[in-house]
């Protein structure tokens, strides 16, 4: 044995002990800082909200202290070790070992023997153990104490924070250890071939948005063995009878595979084995039918003759790709109960794979002469387009329909084709202006005329005035029955009530005019031409004066009648398309005259409409206040989001944010508060003395 290795061993042990002590002191210092920071936080002196900051500060302090101690540390050299051994030796030190080391540790001689004897007399290992205890015990105790205090301070801080500012929503963090057969999985989406899109690998996703018809493959690492302890089911999320359908789980080498097809409705796939359960939400996006807009012709038309060419144009768009488009022309011939219908396709255009055309404008021209049209035929023109979706029974994209009609020669008096021509003029009628002129002329000449002649002329004018008055009377009342005469049967007690009264020969409006349009027992008068009514009455006055041979007295009412007619001419005009024959039922006459009587029947009750907002809010609150596992909470949110996508997009959007926050370990509170506000379950009510609430306008 040589004494130098022993001294060197002791030196190394001393250095180790120093390092351990420094480390413990550094950690204890950091702990002390952490304790103080926690207490300050508890007392509100420190605003740092998260414990991670306190841990960080403690770590920095610990590292700094350790570095400082190590820099200051005096290295345990062999000389120091020898001196330390001398101190541990029984009896007074003779420094033989120290001198021996200082002399370079000679192997021979009295000094070497004395050193060896000194070393042999010393229980070095026991001294090292004692030193270790002395050096490390205090920092270790301090460290343990600080650790306990920190733990208590932190728990006090957390409980206090929870009691003062409770978090509305839990921060749900995925457990770190979640490696199992379902974590991670790999998702591959293969779109349908007609979509001409590439397959996508989505990795370990929890929700998938894919085109309906896509093939979805979920795979994961399979445990070794013959059987796969895994089940997979799929169900429609919004279906009332949401029966789960089991899907086969296949093995491909060391991986399990589950395949399904994306549908146009939201689906939830659930994977489970004895210990874990995981859900995949599939949001199927349906392929929409092409959107077709007919650009030409822009309006319906009527053709006098079946000649000429009609340009056709339509703009078509599709989300995947157009397959073909055409203009469909439906030609209807006949009238009454006999009609024939034929369909002609014009301007067919096809787009072949593999190029996908999402936007196109198709044009064609319709040669009317080649269609063999007859007067009265009606053409309905529209554009139609189909995309590459393989389902041939699927709906087509259709445009608006334009209708063309080949006019019949006999229909030019119909306002349905053109503005109605004026009705045939009764040329035997003398206009009011002419009557007025004749009356004024008679008035000027009557002094020079014999009285019988004046009376005869005057009565002739009175007859013309009466004919004109009757003609005006025909248009005073616009009546649904088609019966138009103003004087048809108005007499006292005749039971007629058109809102007018016949007083003498004149018509007067009743004072209570309300109800003119909907009176019950006779032909309803739907409008009264007030100026013509005034003219009618003025004509009556004029006619009476003329009958009495007093043309001078007839002139003022005739002037009034002429002014009223002028006002009526200046009024706005309405051209009606035409009225079907009208039958007015005499309700009072037929009331309860039927031979058969009905029976008392019972009406089934209708179910209440669901209140989705309240139900969703209740579900959300149940999850929040319950002890839901993080994964289950996330899955539930994902399901709720899919459910709400259609009818509550703002709520679904907020839930999407919450799911993202959940995945990132952030606070969910803002997202979930936003989601609940989007639901609108809280309504401010106008306060009232009536405690049952007040209906809102």
């Amino acid at each position: 044995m040589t004494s130098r290795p022993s001294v060197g061993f002791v030196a190394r042990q001393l250095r180790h002990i120093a390092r351990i002590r420094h480390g413990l002191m550094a950690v204890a210092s950091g702990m002390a800082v952490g304790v103080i920071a926690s207490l300050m936080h508890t007392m509100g002196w420190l605003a740092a909200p998260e414990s991670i900051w306190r841990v960080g500060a403690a770590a920095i302090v610990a590292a700094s202290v350790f570095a400082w101690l190590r820099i200051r540390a005096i290295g345990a050299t062999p000389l120091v070790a020898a001196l330390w051994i001398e101190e541990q030796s029984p009896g007074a030190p003779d420094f033989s070992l120290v001198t021996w080391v200082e002399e370079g540790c000679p192997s021979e001689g009295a000094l070497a023997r004395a050193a060896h004897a000194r070393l042999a007399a010393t229980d070095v290992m026991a001294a090292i153990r004692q030193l270790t205890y002395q050096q490390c015990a205090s920092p270790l105790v301090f460290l343990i104490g600080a650790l306990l205090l920190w733990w208590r301070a932190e728990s006090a801080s957390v409980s206090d924070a929870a009691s003062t500012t409770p978090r509305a929503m839990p921060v749900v963090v995925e457990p770190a250890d979640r490696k199992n057969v379902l974590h991670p999985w790999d998702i591959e989406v293969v779109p349908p071939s007609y979509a001409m899109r590439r397959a996508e690998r989505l990795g370990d996703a929890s929700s998938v948005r894919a085109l309906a018809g896509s093939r979805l493959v979920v795979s994961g690492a399979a445990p070794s063995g013959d059987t796969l302890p895994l089940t997979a089911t799929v169900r429609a999320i919004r279906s009332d009878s949401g029966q789960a359908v089991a899907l086969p789980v296949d093995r491909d080498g060391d991986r399990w595979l589950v395949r399904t097809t994306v549908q146009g409705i939201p689906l939830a796939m659930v994977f489970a084995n004895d210990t874990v359960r995981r859900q995949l939400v599939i949001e199927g996006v349906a392929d929409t039918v092409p959107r077709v807009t007919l650009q030409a012709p822009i309006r319906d038309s009527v053709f006098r003759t079946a000649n000429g060419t009609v340009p056709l144009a339509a703009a078509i768009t599709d989300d995947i790709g157009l397959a073909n488009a055409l203009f469909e022309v439906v030609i209807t011939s006949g009238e009454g109960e006999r009609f024939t219908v034929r369909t002609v396709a014009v301007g067919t255009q096809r787009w072949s794979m593999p190029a996908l055309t999402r936007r196109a404008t198709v044009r064609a021209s319709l040669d009317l002469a080649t269609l063999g049209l007859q007067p009265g035929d009606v053409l309905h023109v529209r554009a139609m387009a189909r995309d590459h979706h393989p389902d041939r029974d699927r709906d087509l994209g259709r445009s608006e329909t334009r209708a063309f009609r080949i006019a019949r020669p006999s229909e030019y008096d119909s306002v349905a084709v053109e503005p109605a021509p004026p009705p045939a003029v009764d040329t035997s009628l003398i206009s009011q202006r002419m009557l007025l002129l004749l009356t004024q002329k008679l008035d000027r000449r009557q002094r020079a005329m014999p009285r019988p002649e004046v009376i005869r002329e005057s009565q002739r004018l009175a007859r013309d005035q009466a004919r004109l008055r009757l003609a005006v009377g025909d248009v005073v009342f616009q009546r649904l029955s088609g019966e138009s005469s103003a004087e048809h049967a108005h007499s006292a007690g005749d039971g007629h009530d058109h809102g007018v009264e016949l007083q003498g020969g004149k018509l007067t409006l009743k004072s209570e005019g309300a109800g003119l349009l909907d009176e019950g027992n006779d032909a309803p008068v739907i409008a009264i031409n007030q100026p013509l009514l005034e003219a009618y009455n003025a004509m009556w006055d004029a006619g009476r004066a003329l009958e009495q041979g007093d043309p001078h007295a007839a002139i003022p009412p005739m002037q009034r009648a002429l002014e009223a007619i002028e006002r009526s001419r200046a009024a706005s005009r309405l051209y009606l398309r035409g009225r079907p024959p009208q039958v007015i039922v005499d309700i009072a006459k037929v009331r309860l005259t039927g031979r058969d009587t009905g029976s008392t029947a019972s009406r089934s009750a209708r179910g209440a409409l669901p209140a989705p907002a309240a139900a969703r809010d209740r579900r959300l609150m149940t999850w929040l206040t319950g002890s839901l596992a993080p994964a289950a909470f996330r899955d539930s949110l994902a399901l709720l989001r899919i459910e709400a996508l259609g009818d509550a997009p703002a709520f679904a959007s907020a839930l999407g944010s919450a799911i993202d926050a959940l995945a990132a370990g952030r606070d969910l509170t803002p997202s979930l508060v936003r989601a609940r506000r989007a639901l609108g379950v809280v309504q401010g009510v106008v306060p009232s003395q009536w405690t049952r609430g007040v209906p809102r306008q």
Partner: protein
Amino acid sequence: MTSLAWAGRRRFELFCRLGAIVLLGIAALTVWSHGRAGRTASRSSVFTIATPDSLRALRDLVVRNETRAQDTLVMPLRVIPSAPVRAALGTLHQSGIAGTVTWQDATGARGAALTVELEGRPQGGVQLRLAQPDSTDLVVLRDAGGILDSIDAFGSLHGRVRQWQLASAGEGLAVRLSGAILSAPLSRTRNDTVHRVLVIASPGWESKFVMAALEERGWRVESRLAVTPKAAVMVGTSTAPDVTRHAAVVVLDSMNVPTALAAYVRRGGGVVFSGDGVRSPLARELMTVAGDTRVPAVPGALLTATPLDGLERWQFGARDAIPLLRTAGRPTVLAVRIGTGRAIVSGYRNTWQWRMMGTDQGQADHADWWDALVQAALPIAASPINAADPAPGDAAPYADQVAQLGAPQPEQGPSGELQRPHTVSASAVGWPLSIRWLPWLVGLAFGALLVEWASRRLRGEP
């Protein structure tokens, strides 16, 4: 230096070391005690309740305190304590165990009352009413799920009452205002309200769509729609108003109103006269409504934000009734108590037009309107939550606090400084030191250790 001096230095160093250890031990116990209690109750007679859940701290104070009868315990309260704490304080105050117990009002609350009531409508719902004197503070309504609504201030426009209707509410429904938290537990009592409504009407669009609206909101409708004098379409089985069977009766037709309806209302039934139903002799008798004027509808108003203006209505001159809705200063919906029952009169005719000819929201609004009308006529509380509330003072915690402890002492003296309690109890109970002494303890301990270390190093020892 002599060995004697060195020995003195060593004793001094030992004293410093032991002192530091003792101080650290005290600090550790202080922290430990604080962590155990969550928040240590102050030993001082100035007892601060920072949260409404400090019952444990109060218990510690009461059970362990050696306060004398002549002591005065003054509590500056930053929030109104919870009901159990208030009850405990009241007991303490009344018993005289802790001497005179008074409080200083640092809550900023000015006395507010909150009622939470389950509504009687079939699809549930909660109605909150908050009453408070004039205040311009922010009012926040929240539950366990977070903030539900916040109102800036009580303006003169809305008076001193605020009301919410919640289609759904979670646990912990509470209102925070002026530093106080008002809460009332949401009872899980089963809603026993009868959800059957009798509709007295003749066949027509109004009766059809009113019944549809009520059924959409979950009411079970009963009616007899006479098609002929002998034949009718029956909805449900009963056509006679019955307090035990019908939550309310809706009268849409002025004819064929059963005479038993008056007795039904007086015995505690609810009735809604709407449209032409208000012209029935019974409505006139019950409601003392006067006025035969029909106000025409405003053309196109059904598509505006005030769709009711688009409906023709009867105009009232009402006496002894509470107007629930007004249009142009005239009441259009009235409410009145009749015996133990309630009656609602709505003058709007042909409300079905709101549904068919209104906006896309009109259908839901029409259903909500009728749901609310029937709800307003329900004569009894759907679920007497507050009656079953174990802490009835929660409806008005401030008032309860005053009732328990008397009016608060002035918080500030004439000079503006916070008044301190006159008497401080001396003896310690439990762990006497507050957490606020901790930094001093730790600092003192570190100081002692520093002195010991310096002395030792100056002596040349490691």
